[in-house]
């Protein structure tokens, strides 16, 4: 599912946001999201995930840049753009005194759709809310309120669904239900963008993963490629004598020289038939490089993520 083939569902160009307080929340973000994909946006708290979503959905005004949703500009052509989008916010914000049925029907009307009790019923049943349809929202548990927010977002049959931290503070049952629903929606052709802290979640669900830190989108990659990175191991050699540069004879190994020339780092695919370790050791010997110690380590997505986020100034 490549983002470059067809017209993207969402195209973000040079999007920046500086709040009135002077805090820069987004710095020149570029991103395409393809039709039907599940895109996971990862990042620490305050990285700009919610700001990015809020701009696309019309809640926050961008400072500069342009966003189109299926070709509709989110500002000039906001009606067409917003009609396509369903948003499940991070905060559990509900109208305490309304009933489940009324609040979900209200959302449908707000998005310009004629009443359709059959669809509302379908959504409520999908989310196990049907039995609670006449309950007031304030009588519901947190998990149930989360389901109501999802039902509201699905009430107007959106083609693109944003889930902002959908599983934060949610129990295991609901989490599983949520992921089942996400898969069902994907079957129906709904494009899904979710933000999360949980890397396993991104690994489990997403087609592509984007990492955002301090307002910058620092990595966007297909999940399978990320998984390949997961399969990679790193061999670190502690050198007896520091090297100024990697000798010409070792250029073919793709080595990295670290910690002021005291360490050589060799990345290899542990699952491949030939790892290239034996040849490397031989070539080192030929070049007269002596090492005092060696270690191997496997990088997880978590490591990659932490490294990426740390590298940001």
């Amino acid at each position, binding site marked *: 599912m490549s983002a470059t083939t067809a017209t993207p569902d969402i195209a973000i160009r040079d999007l920046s946001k500086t709040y009135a307080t002077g805090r820069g929340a987004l710095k020149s973000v570029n991103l395409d999201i393809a039709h039907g994909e599940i895109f996971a946006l990862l990042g620490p708290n305050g990285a700009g995930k919610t700001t990015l979503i809020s701009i696309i959905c019309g809640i926050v005004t961008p400072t500069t840049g342009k966003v189109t949703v299926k070709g509709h500009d989110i500002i000039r052509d906001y009606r067409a753009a917003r009609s396509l989008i369903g948003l499940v916010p991070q905060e559990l*914000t509900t109208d305490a005194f309304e009933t489940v049925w009324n609040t979900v029907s209200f959302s449908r009307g707000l998005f310009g759709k004629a009443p359709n009790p059959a669809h509302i019923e379908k959504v409520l049943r999908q989310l196990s809310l049907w039995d609670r349809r006449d309950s007031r929202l304030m009588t519901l548990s947190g998990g149930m309120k989360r389901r109501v927010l999802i039902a509201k977002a699905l009430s107007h049959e959106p083609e693109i669904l944003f889930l902002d931290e959908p599983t934060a503070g949610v129990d295991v049952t609901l989490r599983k239900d949520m992921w089942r629903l996400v898969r069902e929606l994907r079957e129906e052709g709904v494009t899904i963008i979710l933000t999360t802290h949980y890397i396993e979640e991104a690994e489990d669900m997403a087609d592509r993963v984007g990492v955002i830190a301090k307002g910058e989108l620092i990595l966007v990659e297909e999940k399978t490629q990320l998984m390949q990175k997961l399969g990679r191991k790193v061999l670190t050699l502690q050198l007896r004598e520091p090297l100024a540069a990697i000798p010409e004879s070792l250029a073919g190994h793709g080595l990295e020289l670290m910690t002021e020339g005291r360490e050589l780092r060799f990345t290899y695919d542990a699952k491949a038939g030939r790892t290239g370790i034996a040849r490397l050791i031989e070539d080192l010997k030929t070049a007269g490089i002596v090492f005092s110690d060696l270690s191997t380590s496997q990088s997880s997505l978590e490591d990659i993520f932490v490294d990426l986020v740390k590298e940001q100034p």
Partner: protein
Amino acid sequence: MNWHAVKAIYVFEMSRALRTISQSIISPVLSTSLYFVVFGAAIGQRISEIDGVSYGAFIVPGLIMLSILTQSIANASFGIYFPRFAGTIYELLSAPISPLEIVFGYVGAAATKSILIGLTILATAALFVPLHIAHPFLMLAFLVLIAVTFSLFGFAIGIWADGFEKLQVIPLVIITPLTFLGGTFYSVKMLPEFWQNVSLLNPVVYLISGFRWSFYEISDVSIWVSMAMTFVFMGLCLALVWWMFRTGYRLKA
């Protein structure tokens, strides 16, 4: 126009009023009716007529106006402030609706409620004092225009307010005194000349005077001036709300 959205907001707001009927409709009607009992039936006979109208009847238009102003502001300001306070405003901002449609929904519902309250008070007043409405259509027109204008004003307050206190302060500290001093209980002509001139700075004088004219054809200022001022206030409130949406003032980051 996204009429489904306008309808959704309108129905939502009206159902909120029905859910809290004792607070939103019965209580203003009851408290205003007490004035008729006290001033109309009890001590009204001891006060001389004003411009040939019995005192009990004289105060009816002003009291209806008092309710219309305070209720329009209260309904509309709370209607838009509460989603901001509770956070549910996100949905309104992310929906494919224009500011005009949001205003139609919220202001339409708030105005409807205060018109209903005004008419209920009018019907209640008829039980206690002899009423006569010389120009019923003009009376209704004033009622609707003023309800809409002050609902717009309340809507603007609801966007401006960043706490429940600010929500209350303008109705309590500005609108209620202006209404009491704007000729609800007396004719401005009864005041010394200096205070008559001061009163002309009070916008509510024009509204009450015009409204009262539609009942008894007596007024403090010309009916034409009253009509013109009503439209001026409406224009000002529309401009204020328009500016708020245009700039995203307190709505969007």
